[in-house]
């Protein structure tokens, strides 16, 4: 690992001493957190790739994207922790990049359990709005020619910021709202399809233990090369994340005890948690699934079965978040569920 790195270009380069910085090691590289950075770099961190020679093609694509006047990363910076500036070693070799520091943010994986949702204070409404924000972020990312590929709950961070404001006509009335922000991380594992800029890069990074696409399972079974990631892969992963975050249940597994092999089989055969006739899902998860309301529940199921291959209709998630009803028993469900799935009273 280098002791010093240079950030920026030409005369504007700044030399940073990495030794005193707090850091977190990841699979591909080490992220150095700000603190001792110059003032203009506050809220920025440095990602140094562990073995840059293994990521030469990737780094070349990132370099091209950063140096291109069209600034595709800049346009996606409110959706993802995109590379901001290149990081060079003493030999002027690009070994990483700077990105927005997201130290106080939470991961979507925390929202896949009841406990995690409680500890991060994300109720069903907030979860719906965060997913809507993620849906918009994915559209933004795709709009710049990127495909996330390894879209899984741990690669999405979120923050909710309470906002208070006054309405100008009557400044004595204070309003409050919450702003939901999401950032997709691990941007260096994205594929880039920008033939207009002369940049094409296909990634093959995927955490198969979490999100395992049907065509990739099939390729692995047959010992064939993986297909290239497309936006459809991201939208399928998004549907999995939605199901997980909103119901707290895996869209394919009965329970945590089940072997992963069985899950792969179910993914291939489209045996989702919501598949009637073929799969029995315990009544215990019924109320959480029904809380989605019939339309969102069946639409997500169609996405999981590969019947919907298009960007997710974000307004369906906003409608979900904005039309929740809490029953006298304390259970919350979408108004279209009509009857409380927990106690059978009218919502």
């Amino acid at each position, binding site marked *: 690992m280098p002791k010093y790195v240079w950030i920026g270009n030409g005369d504007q380069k700044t030399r940073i001493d990495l030794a005193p910085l707090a850091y977190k090691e990841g699979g591909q590289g080490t992220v150095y957190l700000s603190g001792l950075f110059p003032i203009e770099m506050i809220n920025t961190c440095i990602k140094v790739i562990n073995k840059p020679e293994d990521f030469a093609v990737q780094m070349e694509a990132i370099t091209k994207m950063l140096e291109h006047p069209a600034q595709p990363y800049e346009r996606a910076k409110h959706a993802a922790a995109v590379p901001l500036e290149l990081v060079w070693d003493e030999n002027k070799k690009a070994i990483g990049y700077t990105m927005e520091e997201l130290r106080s943010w939470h991961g979507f994986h925390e929202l896949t359990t009841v406990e995690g949702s409680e500890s991060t204070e994300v109720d069903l409404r907030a979860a719906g709005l965060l997913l809507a924000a993620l849906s918009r972020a994915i559209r933004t990312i795709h709009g710049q020619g990127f495909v996330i590929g390894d879209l899984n709950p741990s690669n999405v961070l979120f923050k909710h910021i309470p906002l208070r404001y006054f309405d100008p006509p009557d400044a004595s009335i204070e309003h409050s709202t919450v702003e939901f922000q999401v950032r997709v991380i691990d941007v260096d594992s994205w594929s880039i399809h920008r033939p207009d800029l002369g940049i094409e890069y296909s990634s093959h990074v995927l955490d198969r233990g979490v999100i395992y696409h049907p065509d990739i399972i099939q390729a692995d079974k047959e010992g064939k090369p993986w297909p290239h990631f497309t936006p459809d892969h991201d939208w399928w992963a998004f549907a999995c994340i939605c199901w997980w975050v909103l119901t707290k249940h895996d869209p394919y597994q009965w329970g945590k005890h089940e072997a992963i092999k069985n899950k792969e089989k179910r993914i291939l055969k489209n045996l989702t*948690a919501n*598949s009637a006739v073929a799969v029995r899902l315990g009544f215990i998860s019924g109320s959480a699934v029904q809380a989605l309301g019939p339309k969102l529940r069946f639409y997500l199921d169609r996405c999981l079965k590969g*019947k919907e291959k298009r960007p997710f209709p974000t307004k369906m998630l906003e409608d979900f978040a904005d039309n929740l009803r809490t029953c006298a028993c304390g259970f919350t469900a979408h108004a279209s569920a009509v009857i409380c799935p927990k106690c059978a009273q009218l919502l």
Partner: protein
Amino acid sequence: MKTLGEIMQEDREIGLQFSFMNKEAIPQFLEDLPPETVEVAEARHQFVTTQPTGVKLTDDDVFHGKKVDLRGLPANLLQTNYVLVGVWRQERIQTKQGPMRGTSFWMIRFRFRHKDHLAEYRAKMGEPAWRELEANRPVLLGELVTICSLAFWQMRAYRNPYYHDHQVLPGVHAISLNFEGREPLYEWNPPKELGDDDLPARYNPDFVFNLI
């Protein structure tokens, strides 16, 4: 507004029967009955055609082929004196003459019973099964909501004789609401240019059915 009939004290049960041709559209949390065999299907057909028939409440001239909106029905039922006492799903074989004869369909049946006649039903069912039903009732009703929310249906309604131990009970009836010809309500595959918008409904109903 057209009134089909009045629910009377003598109507001991209200039964809702939905026929699905597409098993993908069936909601998840329903009790399974074993698939119907050809012999049983024929026997059922025979029984239906030889027993005293009820009174048809829907006029075929008015309702045949019409799309009926049932979205208000589950909430209506919850506000009556009838309680859900059973739900079944069964794969059946089409016995009617015609091109569909011999093909499979799925029958989903919801059975509601008048509150004044629950005790005998509960005793017959047995306490463990009754307790299980009580625990599952919210989710079972939720699946009725699902069925009524995602499609419009063609409808036939009858007031039938009521059978107890295979015998007709004089002066007692059962309302039977039969739904078939399911028309999915939402445009699942709208044009891509819809962008971020929610899914649009495909139709307006010909009728809206309510129990009031």
